[in-house]
């Protein structure tokens, strides 16, 4: 069932546990976290598994520290992850911004629960989707993935590590209690068959190395601490040497690149699942557990003769603007079920640009949608 320290084969496990195993197989060797429902099981599993694979588990004093610690670990040359839920995600925001500014690969998992504030700690929600995009101050772009099953929590955790190394930034996994606590069969391929993106190490000697000089894809190579490069990195606006540069020009150059390295590589970052869109009148656009619940409504609607398609956002950020615009040109309406009062629906509506209607199916959290509530909206817009 397993090749030494790594699992391979078929397992029955929760989404949280699958996420931890995905991290391990992606090469994660440092986990810092703070217990929080419904993400605690990731920390618990990592506390057992990290020592087994020669990694480190650190239980920090809070989520501010957890986020700072994984950035430090990443600069120490190790792949690192933290996992949390809404309240902890809020506390991580400032250092997620530091991760963006220092171009630090790492993975942040948010197993969302219903907020605001303490809200419903054990019950599901999807209220952090906009926070994932805009939660830290300033302008930046980010990558966020939304798994819809324990299997995808496993798979997308590996993807998240790979993207974080490729583009040098924190990658967010925006899951939710319903998926994190769901037990399902998952398939783990032997670790030797898993494609892993390695750290982009400098290819020039220290005296020629500019830590923030980008390559063709706008991403610089990354030396780690202790490798003789004696680099300086700062959260201040900096030049290619990494030195603070307090001018609007330096700001424009740096921030533009931090955004462009994501936006210009969107084609290769964005993953979508589509079904029955070509001849659809209505497209359900959703993500995570809500996309899964939507399948029931879609099937029923099709039986009733409604031409309805599915656009599932596996990558939520960067938002698949182009594809949504394209689809908007030939359908009547998007239906967007999400467990919040309208976040991703705003993006859909923006990109639909009046060409197609966008109808939100909101849910304040605590439970997934009743498929009937989605079906009802599909029927209404199809009329």
């Amino acid at each position: 069932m397993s090749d030494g320290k790594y699992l391979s084969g078929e397992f029955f496990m929760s989404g949280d546990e699958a996420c931890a195993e995905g991290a391990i197989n992606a090469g994660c060797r440092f986990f810092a976290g703070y217990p929080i429902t419904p993400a605690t099981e990731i920390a618990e599993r990592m506390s057992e598994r990290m020592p087994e694979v020669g990694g480190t588990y650190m239980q920090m004093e809070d989520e501010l520290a957890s986020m700072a610690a994984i950035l430090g670990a990443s600069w120490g040359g190790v792949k690192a992850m933290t996992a949390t839920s809404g309240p902890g995600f809020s506390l991580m925001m400032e250092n997620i911004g530091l991760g963006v500014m220092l171009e630090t690969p790492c993975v942040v998992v948010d197993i969302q629960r219903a907020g605001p504030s303490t809200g419903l700690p054990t019950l599901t929600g999807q209220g952090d989707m906009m926070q994932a995009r805009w939660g830290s101050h300033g302008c930046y772009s980010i990558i966020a993935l939304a798994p819809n099953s324990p299997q995808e929590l496993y798979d997308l955790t590996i993807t998240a590590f790979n993207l974080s190394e490729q583009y040098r930034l924190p990658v967010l996994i925006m899951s939710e209690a319903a998926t994190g606590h769901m037990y399902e069969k998952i398939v783990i391929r032997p670790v030797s068959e898993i494609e892993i993106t390695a750290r982009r190490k400098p290819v020039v000697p220290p005296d020629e190395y500019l830590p923030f000089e980008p390559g063709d894809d706008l991403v610089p190579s990354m030396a780690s601490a202790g490798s003789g490069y004696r680099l300086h990195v700062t959260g201040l606006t900096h030049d290619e040497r990494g030195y603070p540069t307090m001018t609007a020009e330096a700001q424009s150059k740096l921030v533009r690149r931090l955004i462009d390295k994501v936006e210009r590589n969107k084609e290769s970052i964005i993953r979508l699942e589509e079904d029955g869109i070509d001849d659809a009148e209505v497209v359900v656009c959703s993500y995570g557990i809500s996309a899964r619940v939507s399948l029931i409504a879609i099937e029923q609607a099709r039986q009733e003769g409604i031409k309805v398609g599915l656009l599932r956002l596996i990558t939520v950020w960067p938002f698949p603007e182009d594809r949504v615009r394209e689809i908007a040109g030939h359908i009547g309406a998007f239906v967007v079920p999400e467990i919040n009062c309208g976040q991703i629906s705003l993006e859909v509506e923006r990109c639909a640009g009046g060409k197609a209607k966008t109808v939100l199916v909101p849910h304040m959290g605590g439970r997934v949608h009743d498929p009937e509530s989605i079906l009802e909206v599909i029927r209404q817009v199809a009329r």
Partner: protein
Amino acid sequence: MTTTTSTTTGARQHPLDEYLRADRLPHIWCPGCGIGLILNAFLRGLLKSGLDPDKVAVVSGIGCTGRAAGYLKLDSFHTTHGRAIPFATGLRLANPELKVVVFSGDGDLLAIGGNHFIHAARRNIDMTVICVNNFNYGMTGGQFGPTTPPTARTTTSRMGNTEASFNIPYLAEASGAVYIARWTTAQVTHLEKSITEALVKKGFSLVEVVSPCPTYYGRSNRLATGLSLMQYYRDSSITRHGISTRNAAIDFNGQITVGKFVDIYRPYLPDLRGRYNGTSA
């Protein structure tokens, strides 16, 4: 901090030049500020420690002292306000070859970062913290902070500070630090020696350095020049090695107890972890 700058003179290589980013000088610190002095003492202490500078990483938070990392030609990280210690924790635990030094100010380490300070000491994480204590927030213009002595005037305590201040060595000892020393910038030789000792110590070591901020703390309290503050330090410092840290509090314009207060052994991270797991330290 003001925008006043100092300049370096002469083309001759100073022995510390190799460890400073000459292309970043002049630095941003005000004339009479103590931080530059402490940075030099740190480098001299580092050279005497015998540690390989390529394996030393310095982490700073935010504030006047937080800028120190940027002048060092070592792996250096200028992070977020208060979070230098947890960043350093990740760095240290991820890379067993590294000696990690946190070089930051009293406000950064003990106000916004206070929680991380006590927990890193409790865990006895193998790192050295150099805490520059200038009794106020310099970068933002001289407000009172967690180390401002009661009654001292600052821009947010014009009538005198009404809060009690932290006695840093006492806090560090209660939290679990294994090496604790305090000096002022008037005792650089002792300071250097303590820095060397702290750097080779295994576990959480702390060197507090009382340092002049003439621009704000000094001006608000009629000690307006670096020199008059240095004079105060010289006149009022009393060396008492091994004294109980609870007796090391600093009153406004009062005596400053300096010396090495704590030097003990306690199992530390990551060594302890390695022993539990049967992996390396």
